[in-house]
């Protein structure tokens, strides 16, 4: 098929590689996210396994040419299974001096470096903080440097269009993309189709971007700047239908699927916040699935409206990030008290306070499990990769409805914005979600209990004979009437704890990847990819090591203690100061080795591998 096909053979010798990491870096106005996304779409179409890592500043347009304004997009594409966007790039495309300065330390020695020399003028160098021109001072001699006048060549390619120079210059990212398509033997068909669709109403812009892309491709061909070109064959993924998906997209789809299976409307109350807003954008498109999206006046109203919708029989959902999470806590406590379903999605970011809005972190675990007044137990689960956000969201909805209590779903900026191929599930394989509203009036007690889950009945307004009141004041078990009785309060505190504890009976057995003894790497959330790669690497090097990745953080799986006991050493990598480690020590009186990174950046495979090797020195097979 032509749209997916490999491009015609280049005249340079072709080398086959199993995986390549490219990072596109430029000013935040240079369109680097778009360039990366397009390269990714083409890699997906070819059938590569892939993982992406967009990394951009919080400012929409920081001053042009400065370090603060540098935006990057890294894509790892491969003919083998991959789990991360790659530690450092093999190829760096730097659209200006600041992009070079901000990213060069990550480029692997001997890596390919393409720079736009037109953005290395005196002023550009000064803005980037260079005192010497790095293109001239020999500091880049360890790389394969390609100096290309990308701005000038783009203008030349667009000369006939008659477009203003300002508009022409905005096409230079497609020139760079065309160069990469040439270097990696990719067809331009997927991007051509995308451009035509995107600019359907502005054909002159569609034509300009296509010309720029073709210009980059043709330039490589004509100028013979590369000595060799590369191909990365398709990966051997498990059979099925795939699509490329970001975590936030997958999460939104998981919730739509859950509401669909439950046969109830989905109500999202949300307030825009980075990096969670895309879930609101995504869900607002799905109105014909019975999805009601309410952009509330603030974070508190967002969660409150979702709880109100749950009370009235919809599936109540709110989406946010750390600062918003803090604001919602009083309402989450109320949801625990009135025992209604409520899904709270927290796309974690660097903190505290505003912190690093566009950067990733996993430091809201303790907040999620414990961050409410008094004894307020809450189910907490986490997604581990972009595509896993679908199942994690579905599971959050299932547990919340079945157990009649809120569920906090943790994701983070890394997997929310990152993308990977997703093997699409079959609808019929998704577990059932049964909603059983109370209708029987005889003997109805609002706080009666299911004997297994301890869930109370969901009796929604509009049901004759079930008029009842719920609220935040302590309830008498059974009747739900206000009660200040000391023994009843203690009983209810235990009951709410037991109700959440019993969720452990409703979750699958833990599956350890790798060895059943030696070193255990225990992770949760978005560290999954880096841990998986590093554990496989370490095992290939002869270290005896297993990997357990927790979906369920509260309650923890029932078999966790037994698994921990099997291993000599336990390594807990987290993008925080050791929050899961603290819980493990408290619950199991078991020491663990912490590996913590709090830089707003995900773990590299090499970082975890180093820690495994250090621990595993004594437990080699």
């Amino acid at each position, binding site marked *: 098929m032509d749209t997916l096909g490999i491009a015609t053979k280049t005249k340079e010798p072709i080398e086959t590689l199993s995986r390549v990491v490219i990072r596109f870096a430029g000013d935040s106005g240079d369109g680097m996210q778009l360039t990366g996304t397009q390269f990714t779409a083409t890699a997906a179409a070819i059938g590569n396994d892939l993982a992406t890592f967009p990394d951009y500043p919080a400012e929409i347009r920081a001053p042009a040419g400065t370090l603060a304004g540098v935006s990057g997009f890294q894509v790892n594409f491969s003919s083998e299974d991959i789990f991360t966007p790659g530690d450092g790039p093999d190829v760096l495309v730097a659209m200006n001096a600041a992009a070079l300065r901000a990213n060069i330390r990550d480029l692997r020695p001997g890596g390919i470096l393409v720079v736009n020399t037109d953005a290395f003028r005196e002023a550009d160098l000064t803005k980037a903080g260079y005192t010497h021109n790095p293109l001239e001072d020999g500091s880049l001699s360890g790389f394969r440097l390609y100096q290309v006048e990308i701005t000038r060549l783009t203008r030349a390619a667009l000369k006939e269009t008659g477009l203003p120079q300002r508009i022409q210059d905005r096409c230079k990212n497609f020139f760079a993309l065309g160069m990469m398509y040439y270097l990696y033997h990719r067809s331009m068909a997927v991007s051509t189709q995308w451009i035509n669709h995107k600019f359907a109403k502005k054909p002159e812009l569609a034509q300009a971007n296509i010309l720029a892309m073709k210009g980059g491709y043709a330039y490589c061909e004509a100028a013979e700047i590369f000595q060799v070109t590369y191909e990365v064959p398709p990966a051997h993924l498990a059979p099925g239908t795939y699509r490329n998906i970001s975590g936030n997209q997958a999460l939104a789809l998981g919730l739509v699927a859950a509401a669909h299976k439950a046969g109830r409307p989905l109500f999202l109350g949300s307030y825009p916040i980075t990096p969670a807003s895309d879930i609101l954008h995504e869900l607002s498109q799905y109105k014909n699935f019975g999805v*009601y999206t309410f952009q509330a006046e603030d974070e*508190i109203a967002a969660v409150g409206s979702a709880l109100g919708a749950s009370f009235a029989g919809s599936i109540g959902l709110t989406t946010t990030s750390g600062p918003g999470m803090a604001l919602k806590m009083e309402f989450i406590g109320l949801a625990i008290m009135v025992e209604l379903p409520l899904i709270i999605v927290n796309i974690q970011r660097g903190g505290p306070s505003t912190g690093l809005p566009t950067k990733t972190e996993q430091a809201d675990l303790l907040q999620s499990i414990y961050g409410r007044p008094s004894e307020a137990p809450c189910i907490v689960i986490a997604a581990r990769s972009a595509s896993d956000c679908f199942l994690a969201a579905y599971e959050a909805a299932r547990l919340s409805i079945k157990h009649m209590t809120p569920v906090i779903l943790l994701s983070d900026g890394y997997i929310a914005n990152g993308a990977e191929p997703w093997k699409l599930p079959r609808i019929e394989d998704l577990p059932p979600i049964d909603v059983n509203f109370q209708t029987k009036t005889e003997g109805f007690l609002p706080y009666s209990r299911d004997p297994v889950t301890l869930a109370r009945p969901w009796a929604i307004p509009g049901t004759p004979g079930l*008029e009842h009141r719920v609220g935040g004041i302590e309830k008498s078990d059974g009747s739900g009437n206000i009660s200040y009785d000391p023994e009843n309060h203690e009983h209810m505190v235990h009951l709410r704890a037991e109700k959440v504890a019993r969720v452990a009976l409703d979750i699958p057995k833990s599956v350890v990847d790798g060895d059943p003894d030696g070193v255990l790497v225990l992770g949760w959330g978005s560290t999954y990819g880096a841990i998986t790669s590093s554990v496989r690497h370490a095992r290939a090097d002869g270290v005896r090591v297993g990997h357990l990745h927790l979906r369920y953080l509260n309650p923890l799986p029932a078999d966790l203690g037994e698994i921990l006991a099997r291993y000599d050493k336990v390594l807990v990598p987290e993008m925080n100061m050791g929050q899961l480690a603290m819980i493990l020590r408290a619950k199991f009186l078991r020491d663990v080795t912490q590996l913590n990174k709090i830089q707003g950046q995900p773990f590299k495979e090499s970082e975890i591998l180093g820690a495994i090797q250090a621990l595993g020195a004594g437990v080699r097979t």
Partner: protein
Amino acid sequence: MTTASLTKKDFITDQEVRWCPGCGDYAILSSVQSVFPDLGIPRENFVVVSGIGCAARFPYYMNTFGFHTIHGRAPAVATGIKVANPELSVWIATGDGDALSIGGNHIIHLMRRNVDIKVMLFNNRIYGLTKGQYSPTSEMGKRTKSTPFGSVDRPFNPMAVAIGSGATFVARSVDVYASHLKEVLGAAARHKGTAFVEIFQNCNIFNDGAWEPYREKELRDDNLIHLRHGEPLIFGKNADKGIRMSAPFTPEVVALSSTVTAKDLVVHDERGPAAYAFMLAQMEAPSFPVPVGVYRNVEAPVFDAAMHAQVDEVTAKKGLGDLEALLYSGDTWEVR
């Protein structure tokens, strides 16, 4: 239960009412329980939502669906309920602190959106449940436990806040003035959109007598002016005083006489410009009688209805969502 057979008794719960003896809330509860059976709404379709405060205990005493939420946030919860099921008749019982202090942001957005929810603001100009601190409606210089030397901040005028927020139904009544309160609540219930009703309510423990001129039968005729659509603004025990415009939007009190007659007075128009309603809101003692009744009653798009209409419209256009088609949309590829 058919709506025809509903009586006040059907709306009384088995819970012991725990307001202080003599509290104005008892009178409001009684009026609401009298009004609800006559609205033609099945009992199971009523939902009473509240935040925190003395007024917020209201749902526990109403034999309907009820939700006692958290401080100031009743509008948020009520909005979720109403959007989830627009068939429901959703009422909020709130107080001056709950609605205008901690919940100020929610109440203004509720009115801005015109969600079809009825708000009863029990205004006693004091914090009762926390035992007597001044509130955002307390008069300046108020001496309370938290302001022993007098409060130094200016109060909110709830009518002005509601009108300024774009509320489509704004009214005011008095806790013990049962016939008037029932009439106003009935009109609120019939309105499509947010109905905001301020109720002067006496806290006989921490702020006794705050509304005395408007509650006492022998005083209120001289201190209240009844707003009736299409009728001139006349007040006084002997109906011998009225409100005239001395300049545009500048009211003055005049005595009726052979030269100044009803024809010279302002004729109340619920659907008049917001500036007129705002002018009424500024009429305060001692210069003016305080207007009670419906200040403003206009039509505007209703939020919950619009939200459902949009979902219906998109569904009609795109067809009912097909989950499989959604998941398998976009650029997919097969691996064999």
